[in-house]
């Protein structure tokens, strides 16, 4: 049970990055391989906010949201929207290039080594029904739930949310129905990147460190999450993220930590072969 709880916490961070990634994929129909580096820049935004402003959990998470979101908007404006979307390889590889650039820009600013993320809450554990949970883990779960609910509310109840869903369903039709598609795409990329940034801060808190290559570390895992969830399927991405976290934690618990990473990839490969539409089974035209 303890490993399942720990897995859910790690899984929440995967879910949050995957959620943002999936949202961006829905809008742009491109795998934004630089998304994981927005997550890293979000983590550093939180780190900077703590050093410069105050030792507050809320401030650092807001800084992560803001840092990731603004950078996302900037790269959409300056780069993503100009990519030749009629080819398959160019956007994929272009965003890989952008990711390399963002990573090494972070090295340039913050140095190549990891930076210690100050502990914002005590490191003691609380007992809840026989399980141990730390302050940071509670913060992660609460933030995850809040952001998830916030996103759901936005998508379900606001005009912009409906426009986002319409655009990801079919941008052309949405455009003819009076949706300002470029604006909606910009907002979507901003929101998705903000979620990634917030997740970066949470991971920084969880492991007590941030580093320029932290995005690289989770890149393949996040791909696993969004494929297992179904490309562009948001609830699926959340479920897949949590699932991956739990499976990894259980693999570690069973003494299989050496092949822990392999588990994620094996899961990914199996899903691609047998259930490419993902966990929740939305049919996908791209197949």
């Amino acid at each position, binding site marked *: 049970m303890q490993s399942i709880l720990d897995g859910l916490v790690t899984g929440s961070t995967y879910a949050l990055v995957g959620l943002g990634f999936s949202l961006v994929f829905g809008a742009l129909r491109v795998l934004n391989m630089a998304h994981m580096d927005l997550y890293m820049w979000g983590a550093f935004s939180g780190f900077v906010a703590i050093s410069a402003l105050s030792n507050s959990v809320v401030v650092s998470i807001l800084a992560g949201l803001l840092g990731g979101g603004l950078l996302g908007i900037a790269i959409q404006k300056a780069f993503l929207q100009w990519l030749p979307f009629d*080819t398959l390889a160019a956007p994929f590889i272009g965003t890989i*290039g952008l*990711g390399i650039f963002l990573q090494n820009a972070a090295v340039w600013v913050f140095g190549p080594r990891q930076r210690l993320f100050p502990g914002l809450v005590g490191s003691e554990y609380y007992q809840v029904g026989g399980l141990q949970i730390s302050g940071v883990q509670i913060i992660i779960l609460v933030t995850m739930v809040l952001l998830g609910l916030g996103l759901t509310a936005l998508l379900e109840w606001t005009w912009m949310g409906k426009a986002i869903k319409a655009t990801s369903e079919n941008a052309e039709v949405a455009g003819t129905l009076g949706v300002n598609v470029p604006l909606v795409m910009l907002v979507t990329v901003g929101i998705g990147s903000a979620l990634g940034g917030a997740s970066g801060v949470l991971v920084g808190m969880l492991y007590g460190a941030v580093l320029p290559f932290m995005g690289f570390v989770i890149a393949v895992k996040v791909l696993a999450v969004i494929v297992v969830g179904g490309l562009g399927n948001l609830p699926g991405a959340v479920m897949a993220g949590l699932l991956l976290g739990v499976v990894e934690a259980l693999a570690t618990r069973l003494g299989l930590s050496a092949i822990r990473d392999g588990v994620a990839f094996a899961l990914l490969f199996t899903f691609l072969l047998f259930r490419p539409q993902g966990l929740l089974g939305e049919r996908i035209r791209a197949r």
Partner: protein
Amino acid sequence: MLGYLENVATTAGINAIITIGLTVVVMSGQLSVCNAALAGLAAYTAASLSIFLGLPFLLSVLLGAALAAAVGAALSLVCRNLQGFYLAIATLAFGAILVTVFENLQVLGGAMGLARIPPRTSFFNVYAVLVVLLCLLWRFERSRFGVALYALADDPIAASAMGIHVVALKVLAFALGAFISGLGGGLYAHYATVVVPGDLSFHQEINLYLYAGVGGLTSYWGAVLGAFALAALTELLRFSIYERYLLFGLLLALIMLLKPEGLVKRFPRRN
């Protein structure tokens, strides 16, 4: 100085060979993100054959490449229903699984890798392989297979209507690309004298895409140009690996934005 240039040129040649393998796969419309992993598989195989069985250099390199080709063909066949991003992610996952496998194979050194591989690769045999390869590809491009491959890349549906067996051709292209990358991998093993699981990682795939992307994704001349251009840039920008990659990343992003086919467009092929 001469020795230094020879080292740089040998490395660039090996990278060019591995990247050519990637472009052959991409040429068939399959976005493979596991050519570095397949090259690594061939490197491990060739190295083991040299170390444990004492097979001659050329034979072990060829057998390593053959294994990579077989695995590549099997992968392509298993993934025949996956297209576009789905295939890219599947191959990426496959490469990552290979890394985990080699990290846990204690016989082959586990995470420490396989060391003390006999140093047999030289400037001359790398360039001999490269030249032979380019000549063969030049012929291949003008053969029935080559023309079919280009037709497939342009429009799979039209190609299939013209009587091209799409799955068979894709599997063939994947196997051929894996074989070529595998040759590069075997040469690399006997040049570096060490192979580690990290040689198969996503990071190396990105390096291949850097070479191929700059030079031209669907052209083997582009692969050669890209590998040499980046080798030269690497040497010119020796001061810092991070600033170098800052520039490389920007370069790759800009080329995909402005000239998505890379610097060398596909060679005009009809006579």
